[in-house]
C-alpha cells in the first residue's frame, strides 16, 4: 500500500482531520509545557483566587490563585504520557495474546482463550485501585492497569477476527505462493486485522485518559506534584456551586481529547480498507465498451 494515499485518506475525512488536529495541539502542548507555560502552573496567589478569564489568565484562576490555562497545558504532558504508554502496553499485550490465542496449536490457543476470559473479568479500575493501595498511587500504576486491562479487551475482540482472516482463501493462496507460516501472519493476516486494532487502540488510549483522570480524581493516580486534568477537575468540583464555569476547562480538555482519539481511530480504520476509501473514478466505472 502506498503511504501517501493512506495518510491523505485519514486527514481527508472531517473526523480524521479533527482527530489529527486536536491531538497535534495536545502533542505540542505536551512537549512544550514542561519548558514553558505563560505562568508557573503551580504558583499560588491567594489574592488572585477565582480571577475571571482575562488576557493575563486565559482560563481564569482556581481557589488558590493558580493560572488554570498554564495548569491545563502542563497537565497535557501527563495525559500524553499515559495515553502513549497505556496504548503501547495495550497493543503489545493485545496483539500477543490475540495471535497466541488464534494461530497456535489447538491446546495452546484454547488455554490462551480461557486466560483472556479470566482476565477480562477483572475490572480495570479496581485493579488500578488495588495496585495503588499496595504500591502507592502513581502514573506507572495507571499505565500498567489500563494497558493490560484494555490489552486483554483488544485480544478478546481480535482473536476471533484473526481466526476468521486466517481461514480466508487469500491466506491459503499466499501460503501456496510460498509465504512462510510466520510471513503470512505479518504480511496478510495482521494487515487485514489492523483496522480493527486501530479502533481498539484508539479506544484503549481514550479510556486510559479517562482512567487516569478518574483515578487522579479519586486520589489514586498522579501524585500531588504532577499536574493532571483529573486532579484539577477534582480540586475544582468542590466549588462547583460557586464557580461552575471553572470546571469547563479540564472537563473540555478531557472530553475533546477522548473524542479526538475515537474519531481518529475510526478514520484510520476506514483508510486501512481500500474498499472504504474514497477514490477518483477509474476507467472501469465509466459506461461503454470494455475491451
Amino acid at each position, binding site marked *: 500500500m502506498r503511504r501517501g494515499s493512506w495518510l491523505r485518506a485519514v486527514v481527508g475525512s472531517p473526523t480524521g482531520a479533527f482527530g489529527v488536529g486536536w491531538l497535534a495541539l495536545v502533542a505540542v502542548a505536551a512537549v512544550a509545557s514542561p519548558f514553558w507555560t505563560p505562568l508557573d502552573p503551580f504558583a499560588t496567589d491567594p489574592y488572585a483566587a477565582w480571577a475571571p478569564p482575562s488576557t493575563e489568565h486565559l482560563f481564569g484562576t482556581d481557589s488558590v490563585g493558580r493560572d488554570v490555562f498554564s495548569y491545563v497545558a502542563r497537565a497535557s504532558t501527563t495525559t500524553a504520557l499515559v495515553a502513549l504508554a497505556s496504548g503501547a502496553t495495550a497493543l503489545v499485550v493485545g496483539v500477543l495474546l490475540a495471535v497466541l490465542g488464534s494461530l497456535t496449536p489447538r491446546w495452546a490457543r484454547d488455554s490462551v482463550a480461557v486466560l483472556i476470559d479470566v482476565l477480562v473479568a477483572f475490572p480495570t479500575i479496581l485493579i488500578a485501585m488495588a495496585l495503588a493501595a499496595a504500591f502507592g498511587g502513581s502514573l506507572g500504576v495507571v499505565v500498567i492497569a489500563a494497558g493490560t486491562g484494555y490489552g486483554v479487551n483488544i485480544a478478546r475482540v481480535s482473536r476471533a477476527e484473526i481466526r476468521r482472516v486466517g481461514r480466508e482463501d487469500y491466506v491459503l493462496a499466499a501460503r501456496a505462493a*510460498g509465504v512462510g507460516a510466520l510471513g503470512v501472519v505479518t504480511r496478510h493476516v495482521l494487515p487485514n486485522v489492523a483496522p480493527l486494532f486501530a479502533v481498539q487502540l484508539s479506544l484503549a488510549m481514550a479510556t486510559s485518559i479517562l482512567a487516569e483522570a478518574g483515578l487522579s480524581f479519586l486520589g489514586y493516580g498522579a501524585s500531588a506534584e504532577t499536574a493532571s486534568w483529573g486532579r484539577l477537575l477534582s480540586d475544582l468540583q468542590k466549588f462547583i456551586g460557586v464557580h461552575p464555569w471553572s470546571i469547563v476547562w479540564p472537563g473540555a480538555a478531557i472530553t475533546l481529547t477522548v473524542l479526538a482519539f475515537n474519531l481518529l481511530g475510526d478514520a484510520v480504520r476506514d483508510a486501512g480498507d481500500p474498499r472504504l476509501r474514497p477514490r477518483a473514478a477509474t476507467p472501469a466505472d465509466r459506461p461503454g465498451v470494455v475491451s
Partner: protein
Amino acid sequence: MSLSIDDLHVDLGGRPVIEGVSLSIGDGERLGLIGESGSGKSMTLLAVLGLLPDAATVRGSIRLDDRELVGLSDRDHAPLRGAEIGVVFQDPRTSLDPIRTIGSQIAEPLRLHEGIGRREARARAIEAAAEVGLPDPAGIVDRYPHQLSGGQRQRVVIATALIARPRLLLADEPTTALDVSTQAEVLDLFRRLVDERGTSLLFVTHDLAVLRRVVDHAAVLSAGRLVEQGPVRELLTRPAHPVTRGLVAASEATTWRTT
C-alpha cells in the same frame, strides 16, 4: 517436471478422505482430475502443496521429480510453492488479499523466491499482467482487487501462479466461479500459457465440458478412491464406472441448457 503420487492416504481427524490414490504426470503432461464434491480432489491438491489442515495425517508417497514431498517440513516445503509449483484456486473473489495492490500480489512469489526489489517487482508484475491479457497493465497493478471484475481477478491469480515460471501448475476448478463466456476466455488463456511454457498440469474440476478443453487424459475420483483413468474422449464416450457415467450425464445436461 514430473509428479508421481503413489498409494496416497489422507486421514482428516481419523476419518479417511483419500484412500490409496496413485497418479502420475510426466514432464509437460496434462492430467485432469474429476469427481463430485467431497471426492478428495482438492485434498489431493493440498497434499501436493503440503497445506493440508493440521488435523490431517498423510501416508504414501508424492514425488516431484526425485524429491519426496510426504513428510517434508513446512520450512522445506515452502520454497517449492510458488517457485516450482504454481496454484490457481477456485474463487478469484476470495483468493486475492483485499488490502494489497494487484501488482504486489502478482509479484509476491518473485519477491519471495528471487528476492528482487520493489521497482523490478513492479516492472515484472506489469509484464505478467500484459501477458494474461489484463487491460492497462501499467495502471492495473496499482489497483485493488475490488476494482476488478471476476474474470480479471482470475487472470491476476493465473499471472501470480505463473510469474515465477513453475514447472508444475495445479488448478482447482479455476473457472467454476466465472460466468460461461468468461469461462471460455480464461480457459483459452490457461491452455495457451501452459502450452507455451510446457508446464506440467494437474487440473481439478467436476465439469467434463471444461476438462475437454484443457487436458487429454483424466482420472476419476470418487469417495477418496481412483475409479477410472484414461483419455478424456474415451471417458466421455464410453464411461465404464457409474460415477463417470453420472458426471458425463450431468455435463451433457448442462451443455443442453447453455447452448
